[in-house]
């Protein structure tokens, strides 16, 4: 499990790492909403290119890792694009074979949808690759007044992931040792699901409750004022980040209008 976490260490820390994580979240979120509601194909394509630049150049990860992460992006691009391409509605039919029908409009829609899904992928990955979860929640508490109970539930849950994967492994071994044979077909899937989820849930619920009691025993109080070990504040980089993001989005927009 530690290996999985270590995988997410960048080759170099770019300026994107120094941006306030909460601000980065809000800006990326707002930009994705623009992506979502946009209906213009040229603008969607230029946005995808813009976020592609962020992802491939400024995330600070080695090209090998970035290409590996690109696989799901390409798959989602192709799957959303192809469905739209082959089944989309349109007047100007270019090619037809049974149910499959390619029209000019469906090509347009396919590219639009494909670019949008690419944008989502690029932005999502760029965000995940360039933040530390703990710092993100510290920033959300300090800059955006996120109630500490939500922040700490996420942080504590994050800490529990390794424990759960380890238990899953033990459970798998235990079922093998007990020589448990599952039925074939759907019944087998149900049996398997039940034999994994029940004990793992029981353990997780118990663990979560104990941690909650331990946190309160350490005088954690919901809603009480607190100080912060990791101070997060706005710096010059945040200004640069905001300017760069707004300028590049505007130029992407202008480029798409005055081609």
């Amino acid at each position, binding site marked *: 499990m*530690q290996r999985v976490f270590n995988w997410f260490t960048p080759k170099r820390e770019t300026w994107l790492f120094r941006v306030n994580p909460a601000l980065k979240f809000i800006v990326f979120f707002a930009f994705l909403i623009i992506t979502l509601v946009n209906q213009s194909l040229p603008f969607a394509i230029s946005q995808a290119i813009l976020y592609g630049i962020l992802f491939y150049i400024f995330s600070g990860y080695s090209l090998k890792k970035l290409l590996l992460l690109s696989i799901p992006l390409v798959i989602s691009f192709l799957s959303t694009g192809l469905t739209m391409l082959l089944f989309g509605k349109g007047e100007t039919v270019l090619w037809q074979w049974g149910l499959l029908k390619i029209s000019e409009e469906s090509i347009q829609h396919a590219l639009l949808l494909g670019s949008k899904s690419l944008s989502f992928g690029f932005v999502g990955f760029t965000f995940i690759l360039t933040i530390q979860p703990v710092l993100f929640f510290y920033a959300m508490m300090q800059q955006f007044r996120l109630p500490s109970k939500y922040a700490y539930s996420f942080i504590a849950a994050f800490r529990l992931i390794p424990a759960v994967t380890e238990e899953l492994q*033990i459970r798998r071994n235990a079922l093998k040792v*007990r*020589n448990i044979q599952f039925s074939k077909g759907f019944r087998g899937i149900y049996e398997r699901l039940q034999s994994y989820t029940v*004990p793992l849930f029981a353990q997780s619920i118990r*663990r979560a409750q104990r941690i909650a009691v*331990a*946190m309160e025993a350490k*005088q954690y109080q919901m809603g009480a004022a607190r100080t912060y*070990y990791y101070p997060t504040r706005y710096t010059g980089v945040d200004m640069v980040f905001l300017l760069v993001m707004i300028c590049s989005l505007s130029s992407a927009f202008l480029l798409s209008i005055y081609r």
Partner: protein
Amino acid sequence: MNNISVTDLRLKFPGEDALVFKDLSFSVQSGEKVLMLGPSGCGKSTLLQVLSGIIPNSIELPMKATSIQLPDSWGFVFQDPDTQFCMTYVDEELAFVLENLQVQREEMAPRIEEVLKRVDLHLIDAHTPINEMSQGMKQRLALASVLLLEPDVLFLDEPSALLDPEGTQQIWTSIKEATADKTVIIVEHKIDLIADWVDRVVLFNDHGVILADGSPADIFANFQEELKRYGIWYPGVWEEYKTSDAFQLMMLNRQVVSSQEKIHIEDFHGYRGLVEKISAKHATVQAGDWITIVGENGSGKSTLLLSLMQLLRTNGVYEVNGVAIVWKKKKRQLPKGLSLVFQNPELQFVTNSITEELTVSLHGMPKADADMYAKELMRLFNLPDSVSRHPYQLSTGQKRRLSVATALTPSTDILLLDEPTFGQDARNTFAILEKLEQLRTKGMTILMVTHDTEIVENFATAVWTVVDGVVHTANGVGGAKSV
């Protein structure tokens, strides 16, 4: 500093008829070190939570008391090292406490450094992942985070129950050093390191009633019978057990069961992923052997069991009952005759009742025979003969015994056990050891990981020591008279 007291406490768990406490009164003077003893389930831990205010502030339970005086400042160390922390790193966890106290950020680093020294945790960098520490270190971190609260009163709920002997030694040393001027209230079964440190011992019976309350010397001299019955690891419990008739009789009958070779290992290696984690040059095991596997935490003892069970990739010569075992990735069946009992019993239960649990692995046996077989195991392991009882509803000791029983199918003749007595009280420990010895005399071969030197000396026929992933065998060590 103030006294802590509760008068006429009544408390009940929802869904249960009996009261945990009926008109219990109890008080502690400031600066006193009090040890609470009693059978498991008698309500000691519950009382600790009432006295700290965790009940009813954090855990809501119906309770009432004529008067109750809680401490102004207190700290609580729990039993399980893995369920006390909400952050990933040592410094972050300690900072969490300081944040709760609204300590300014500039003061945090020096205070973290200082408190880590106080509990003898010497880390090169306080930004160390908690997961990489041993259980003993984690408990000392738990103590450190509690000390940051500057508590007058410390509540310790079995802080060493889940630690190996080394970790146990360390946590008690740190506790004694750090709490000299504080009130300390302890619930614990393993008490040989604190029996002469506490001022006062309070003994509870099964019904949450205080049976005795006095100096350690008084209690240990006058209530031995109760201490034994409640399974408390009081000083000298092993010596006493060794003079018991049951033990003497067992030792009389310790002849060599057979010279049939059960396991043969030659240049054997086990891997996690691509990395070699365990290796053994040469080892043999004969029918009726009881081999204890010892070694430091993380040396590879559990990995050895997983390798023998073929749950990890292995290579080299490995024969079980004369049949060569070759590792295959897509193997459906594990080696015949072998069974493994893991540390956590709950993760091994697969059905909804005790009987089903004992019959589920008996593929191809007629139902009537299987039920008879289960009945026999239930009798052998003192399990309640209840059709509806879910395995999760058993007591900790019963769960452990059931998990050992589930490994025993008619074809099992080699039993691998990962610390089967770990965290158990004295009575359960002796019960499990006696069952295992009974099986051994009938020809069962036992390989067992343990930290307990008394078990090694008194029950093992041979000891394997694992050092940094290498198995060293030396036959004939320990109290085994037969080999």
